[in-house]
């Protein structure tokens, strides 16, 4: 968000120092630039900055159902008390490692690897077939989460409703509730199928933008199709790969609605509970309607901090600013 602003500002500063005429001009085009940034700026401020400030504040209060609904004055500023409780929470570590496991496995197996495989496959077959193939992989993404999860539940649950179990019954096998027996497998596959489309689109467009000559040259130089993928195509996908890793890490960290609908963090105590789901549970959906807004906010704050730190690390390690090409349009 800040990147283009700085670049524009730099240019305006440079322009300003040149002549008076261009100063006048640059002031007015400065206004134009802010004008163009305004809608995006408004959205970021309203839907990101303001909520973050609010949850930072809430995380330092003891706001919960007990004092909000009946006696607002009972709400107190408690400093870092919620965070002290959080770090001593006997389940916090489990939830933390659940989150790491969930993000790493889903990201590496599906959002990156399967996305790469789908885009490589679909760009190596007949164009229209490839297009149809990719369209299928977009379906999980564009299906409403509730509908999508109902489909999976229908697959997984006990006989006589569960489809897998109907097959089991026919084959004379014992039946399970798969969501109880294999919760992680289902959580990861269900989210992974949704996650494929993003990387797939990015990788496909990157592959298709590789000059045809380059691909032909590799074949003439003596490569097989697989060698060409390994020595030419994959190295040229370096930036898209890093981008997808970064973006999808952050995206997976904050996604919880599919897990909520599929296992609700279960079975049992926090088996598939991830951090963002905990924030939701604590703040908005605790047992007996006991919503601990303050404590839930503390979870959310930790997530925001992790996200921002990760984003900064990724940007540094992958040197994203090198990716952002200098604007080619001369600003007058």
């Amino acid at each position, binding site marked *: 968000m800040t990147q283009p602003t700085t670049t524009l500002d730099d240019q305006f500063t440079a322009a300003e120092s040149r002549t008076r005429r261009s100063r006048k001009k640059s002031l007015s085009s400065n206004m134009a630039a802010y004008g163009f940034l305004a809608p995006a700026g408004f959205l970021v401020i309203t839907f990101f900055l303001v909520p973050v400030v609010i949850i930072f504040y809430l995380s330092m209060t003891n706001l919960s159902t007990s004092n909000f609904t009946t006696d607002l004055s009972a709400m107190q500023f408690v400093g870092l008390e919620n965070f002290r409780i959080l770090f001593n929470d006997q389940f916090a570590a489990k939830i933390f490692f659940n989150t790491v496991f969930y993000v790493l496995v889903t990201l590496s197996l599906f959002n990156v690897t399967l996305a790469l495989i789908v885009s490589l496959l679909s760009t190596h077959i007949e164009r229209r077939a490839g297009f149809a193939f990719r369209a299928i992989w977009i379906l999980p993404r564009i299906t409403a989460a509730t509908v999508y999860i109902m489909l999976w539940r229908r697959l997984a649950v006990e006989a006589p409703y569960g489809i897998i179990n109907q097959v089991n019954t026919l084959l004379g096998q014992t039946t399970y509730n798969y969501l109880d027996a294999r919760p992680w497998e289902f959580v990861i596959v269900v989210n992974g199928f949704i996650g494929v489309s993003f990387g797939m689109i990015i990788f496909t467009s990157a592959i298709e933008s590789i*000059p045809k*000559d*380059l691909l*032909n*040259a*590799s*074949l*003439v*130089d*003596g*490569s*097989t199709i697989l*060698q060409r993928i390994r*020595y*030419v195509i994959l*190295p*040229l996908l*370096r930036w898209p790969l890093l981008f997808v890793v970064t973006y999808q890490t952050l995206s997976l960290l904050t996604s919880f609605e599919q897990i909520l609908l599929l296992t609700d963090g279960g079975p049992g105590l926090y088996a598939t509970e991830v951090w963002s789901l905990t924030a939701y549970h604590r703040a908005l959906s605790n047992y007996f309607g006991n919503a601990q807004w303050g404590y839930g906010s503390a979870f959310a704050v930790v997530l925001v901090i992790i996200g921002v730190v990760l984003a900064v690390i990724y940007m540094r390690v992958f040197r994203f600013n090198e990716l952002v090409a200098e604007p080619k349009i001369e600003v007058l």
Partner: protein
Amino acid sequence: MEVKIENLKKQFGQVIGVKDLDLNVRDGEFVALLGPSGCGKTTTLLMLAGIYKPTDGTIRFGDRVVNQVQPRDRNIGMVFQSYALYPHMTVFGNISYPLKLKKVPKQEQMERVERVANTMGIGGLLDRRPGQLSGGQQQRVALGRALVKEPDILLFDEPLSNLDARLRLTMRSEIKQLQNRLGITAIYVTHDQVEAMTMADRIAVMNQGVLQAFDTPEDLYDRPKTLFVAGFVGNPPMNFADVSVMAEHGGFTARNESIRLQVPAERGQKAAAAGKVRMGIRPEDIHVVDEGDAVTAEVVIVEPLGRDAMLDVRFGSDQFLVLADPQKHIRAGDQVKLHFDMDSVQFFDLQSERSLLWN
């Protein structure tokens, strides 16, 4: 390696890329495929490389039919207009790539890459990446990559089009010399006739997917077999006028309402019986003279070309290009007298557009 192309055809859906191409390239020969953009040159080359499968016809390398042979089993080197260097590899990586794929031992790879790089004059650039090289250097790397595996056939697809004029001149003679020394059969695609004329042993002229002529540069220039070839080869292009050739007074005359020209007997004879024919004469065969049995014409445009001045002249309904001495200071609007040197005049049939002299 001999290359024999028979009846070669390539169709992309409804679009015809190449139509019934027949071409025999001798071992060690340098053949240019010359034609305007979109005439099917690249398509032909990519079929030779094995990237495109022919819709019909056969391609033979020596006696082997290669229609179904994968590119990697054809032992060809190819140079692309865009250079097609791998941007993520160094110059060394680029040139050694064909060797790596052939599993040539590391030591031998180094030696061969070094040898080729030194030949191409890029020995000092092996650690650079393509992005850090000039166009000319990139072109040499591309050439080195094509040569390093010691191919039987070299394919060039407009390799010099992206270079500036001066560099194009140097690279032209370098490529020609290299090919000559190595004796590798070369097929060179270009839309630049000067390139084709100066480099090739023989030139295949193509238009709209169809082979128009396959001849030595001299034959194409002096004895064009079709109207297309006559008009396409030569710069500035040949002038055309529709005339009738008559036998008169023991000689032959070509005439229409505004000109009447004596034609040498051996040429006039062949055109005389054909009724109305198209006469072709090159700008350098028309001279501005001060007197004599000349055609008088009006100068429409004068373009100074340095050594010559190119005149766009009009007489009757015909408009010709003529080269004149710039010292004469001819201006637009002047009347000039033209002498036609008819020793190399061409005649074409109006219907078939084929030469009446050379078929």
